[in-house]
Structures are given as structure tokens and as C-alpha cells.
């Protein structure tokens, strides 16, 4: 799973969110490093929806602008969970090696 995709799923794990909300949340999660643009975001959402990882939760119109909120499906939750544990394991392995390197 690529980083932007992981961050989108992470953003949606908090609460259902609309497109611009996801962009802001991903920027915040990554410390401003990942700036999603609309074409990329909706391309990713299309793919995730096709894989059944996210779904539309509700729609509303604010000031004449359509906001469609997305949420994780059960598959999406387990997918993100698996990916997070994988990354955590990798990070854990790296940390333990680095500790050994620091204490000869």
C-alpha cells in the first residue's frame, strides 16, 4: 500500500469525511509532507471504493457545494489494521537493530 493511500484510510478511520476534509487531514497527519490534489484524491477514492474499502456515508450541500462523506467499510478497517501492524513490525525491527547499533 502506498503512503497516500495509507494516509487516506487513516484519515477516514477517525470519522466520515468529505474530499476537502481528507486533503486537510492527510496534510496534518503527514506533517504537511503529503499534499493531495483533487484528481489524485478522487482517483484513490475510486480505487478504494472499487476494492470495497471505503463507502459513501452521506451527502450534504453546503453553500451550493456538494459534500460527499466517505467512511471505512469493515474490510477497510481490517485492511488498515493489517497494514498498520505490518508497518509497526517493520518499525519495531528497525528500532531494535538501531538500539543494538547504539550499545556495542
Amino acid at each position, binding site marked *: 500500500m502506498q503512503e497516500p493511500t495509507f494516509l487516506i484510510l487513516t484519515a477516514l478511520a477517525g470519522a466520515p469525511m*468529505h*474530499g*476537502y476534509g481528507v*486533503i486537510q487531514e492527510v496534510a496534518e497527519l503527514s506533517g504537511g509532507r503529503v499534499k493531495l*490534489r*483533487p*484528481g*489524485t*484524491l*478522487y*482517483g484513490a477514492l*475510486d480505487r478504494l471504493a472499487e476494492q470495497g474499502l471505503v*463507502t*459513501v*456515508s*452521506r*451527502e*450534504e*450541500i*453546503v*453553500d*451550493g*457545494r*456538494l*459534500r*460527499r462523506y466517505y467512511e471505512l467499510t469493515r474490510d477497510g478497517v481490517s485492511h488498515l489494521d493489517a497494514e498498520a501492524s505490518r508497518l509497526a513490525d517493520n518499525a519495531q525491527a528497525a528500532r531494535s537493530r538501531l538500539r543494538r547499533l547504539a550499545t556495542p
Partner: protein
Amino acid sequence: MTKPVVGDAMTNPATGHAITKPMAGDAMTKPATGHAITKPMAGDAMSHTITSQSTKTKPAAARAMTQKPVGHAATPLERRCRLLLHAYPADYRAHRGDEIVATLLDSAGPHRTVPPLGDVLDVLGHALRRRMAAFDLHLGVPLAAPWALALAAGLSAFAWWRIEPVIPTTGPLAYAAWLSALAGWVLLRPGAARALIGVAIAATLATALLAVFVPPERPPVWVIMSLTGLGCIALAGYRPPTLESRFNVLAATVAVIVACGVVSPPAPGYYQPVLARIGAVVAAGVLATAVVALHRRRSGQSARLPIMARLLLALPATWLGPIDAIAWHLPLDDLTAARFGRLAHVVLATCLVLCVIGWFGQGGRARRAGGREEHSRAPFSKERLAGVGVGSAAGYAAFASFNAWPPHTIAAVCVLLLMAALVRARPCMPVAVLWACGTAVGCWAVGVYSNNWSTVGWDSPTKTVVLASMLTLVPSSVIGFAAVRPGARRLPGVVAGGWIAYLTLPALIAWGPLLWALAAMIVLQGLAEVRRAAHDRHADALIE
């Protein structure tokens, strides 16, 4: 401010107060009311929210609102965002358009009048990918990319090695860029190699510009076009190469160079040594890989993607290989020779390749099918086809009335109008206007091109008008392509096919090798369709 009494009012902590609509269908009629009175006051954080709780139904209500918001005039920014959205296919726009516009507006901030360039490029890139995905092209492009690079680099090396010493041009700028792109592919890490391909495309286009300022001429337009086309495929389909593919591409490039040197020039002159040789080699390469793809098919594997990749390569490759009817002293009358030159070859080949890609692509669409099939048929609705016919007739007639009206031109306009009439529908006006303008501009460009790039004082308007008539191959191909789609009226297609044959068959002998192969492919595909239809009828008869 009057508080609207629509549905049950619900307070939304974020936005002040909101109107909740429980059903999407119901929302259709009322939101305008809500909006008319909800002009947000300056300095007031209050805005009005209408929530549609339905998640599965199409957001018809939502769309009806955002497209005609009362009391919420579209800002210039919003209008531009909506214009930008036309890059997406119509069915995708209907599905996602409003929320993409909303996100573009949200992320643009309050003071902008145009969307940020980064967002525009991002949307255009994804829209292009989405359009290509409709024909599974996005899967074929990565397969074609390494070969596109090999062909471009081989072509450049040959032209630099054998043609430049005879006729100096500004070409070496592009040729050097292509060879360094090849070196980058073989030796460098992926990011750098990709950037070098981009640089090579830019250098290719720059050769034409440079020729304005320095004494050497530019390379032939078709060489620039082919290099650019091959470059676009190489760039769009770029994937980090494996060690094997690094060597393969290098070997293929060397093969192209050597083969170009071996093919002897069919006739003296500028175009023949360059275009005919390179074109023949490129055609042989594309055909050889196509044979491999067909072999896969025979042995039961799927050949869709390899065939798609070859078709993509064939597009820029056919721009190289026309055989010059005049230089060959073929027994063609002036009119036919004027009609069938390089321009005719390029237009015909492009139309044929796109038709074949369209046919192969339909298989992919049919597989995905479902509810979207109706949307995907929209580009070929009867109204639009009639618009194409009427519009292109008008555009060509307008060009002719500034120049000349030989009998051939009168026939062309009549045939286009006949096709439009046979479609039996009211022409769609925007499409007709678009095609009229496009055809007129295209004809003018052909005139400028064929009169040694001068915009005034054309010697032979009659010949120019006849040459420009080759552009009628484009609307004819569109109408012909639409006619073979399931359930379409066949008669306009028959007329279109007849007109295409009349324009191009007299010069059959001047067709480049790829054009022959493409035509054969289309005939085979047509026969297969006829056989399948006969088989279906037979099966139906048996069942009854």
C-alpha cells in the same frame, strides 16, 4: 431573515442552522427555496446545509441544486472549475463532478479566480487516465513504452548518422536528447531516466522553433510528430525497468539503426530516404510484435493487451511511412495524387488505428458493462452523429467558399450531408458548431501546410480545397465506426465506408505497409463480426 420551513429543521453545530431533507427524491423540488433565502450574511459564519441521508441512490437532488443554485451565482472560479471538469468522461462527470468542483473550490481559497496550476495539471492527468481506461489503454501503454523509446532512439540515431550529413537540419538537438534518454533508461536510476524522456520530447518540439532563428531547416513535420508521439507513449507508460528490459531496449535500438541502414531508399529526394526507410523498419517492428501478440491469442492466452500496445505504437509509426505517390510516378491523375499524399496517409492511418482501438476497447467495456454502458454510448448518440455530419459539411463548405468549388468538393459536402440525413436525428447544435469550427480551422491549417507555410496568396486554391477534403475522412470514420456498434443504423456507415474507399482506394499502391496491415485487421474483424452474427442467428433458429 426568514427561516425556511422545509422538512424538519435540524441544528448543525458547525454551520449554524441547516435544513435536513430525509429523501433525495424529495429534495429535488425544494432546495432552491432554501437557497434563495439563505444568502450568507457578510461576517456571519452561518450557512445553510441541506443533508441528503440516502447513501445508495444517485445524488440527483444534489446535482440539480449545484447546477442551478438560486441565489448562489457561480463565481468565475467555479465556472472555470466546471470547464476543467470537461476533461473527464461524461459518465464520470455525472458521478463525481460536483464533489470534485466543491473540493477544487474549497482548496483554492476565497481570493482566487483560477484554480491553482498544480490542481489543474493533476485533474487533467487523472482525467486523461480515466479516458484511456475506458479502452483499457492504460494497461497497454506500459507494455508499449519500452519499444516506443527504442523506436524513437533508433530513428534519431539513424537520421543523425545518415541524413544529417546530406541535409543539415536542427534535428541533432532532438536526436541527441533521445539518445541520452536511451542512455538514461539503460544506465540511470528510474527518476532521472523519466526526466530525460520529458527533456527529449521538449527538445523535439524545440527543433521546429529553433529553425525559425537559425539557418538550418527543421526536420520534416512527420518526423517531429512521430518522435513526439513515441515519446508521449514512453513517458506515459514509464515503469522502472528491469535489468532484462534495459538490455532489450538497447538491443532493439541497435536493431532499428542497423535495419534502417540496410533498407535501400526507393527513390531519391528528401522524404524518401528518411521517411520511407525509417517508416518501413518501424512498420516491420510493429508488425513483428503484432504477430507475436496474435500467436499468444492462438495459443489460448489473452492477447488483448499486447495487441493494444502494438496499436498504440502503430499510431506514431504510421505517421512515418507514407509512400510518396508523386515521387514514385504512380499512374495517378493530378486529383488523386493531390488527395493521397502524406496528409491523407496520416489522417487515414490515424482514423484506422483509433477505430481498431475502439473495437478492441469495446470488449473491455462490455466486460465491465453494468449500468454505465448507456453512458459510454453517449458519445455516439444519433443527435451527435448528425451534428458531426452537418458540422463538418458546414466547416468544409465555409473553407471552400473562400477558395474554390470543384466538383469533388461539391460531392464531399453532399456526402457529409447525406450521412447526417441518414442518421435520422436532429443534429446536436453544440457538436455541430464544434465540428464546423474544427473542420474550418483544420482545412485552413492544411492550406497553410500545403502552400509552403504561407497564409496568403495560395497558387492553386482548387488543389488546396481537394487536399483539404481528406479531412472528411475524420467525420466519415466517426460515423462509420458508430454504424458498426450493436443496434446502430447501418446505412450511414455504408455511405461513410463508400466515401472513405472513394477517397483512398485509387491510391492503394501508395499506402504504407502499416496501413495495409491495419486495413487487413479491420476486414478480418468485420468478417469475424459477420460470422458471429450468422452463428447467433443460426443458434436462434435451432432454439426455435
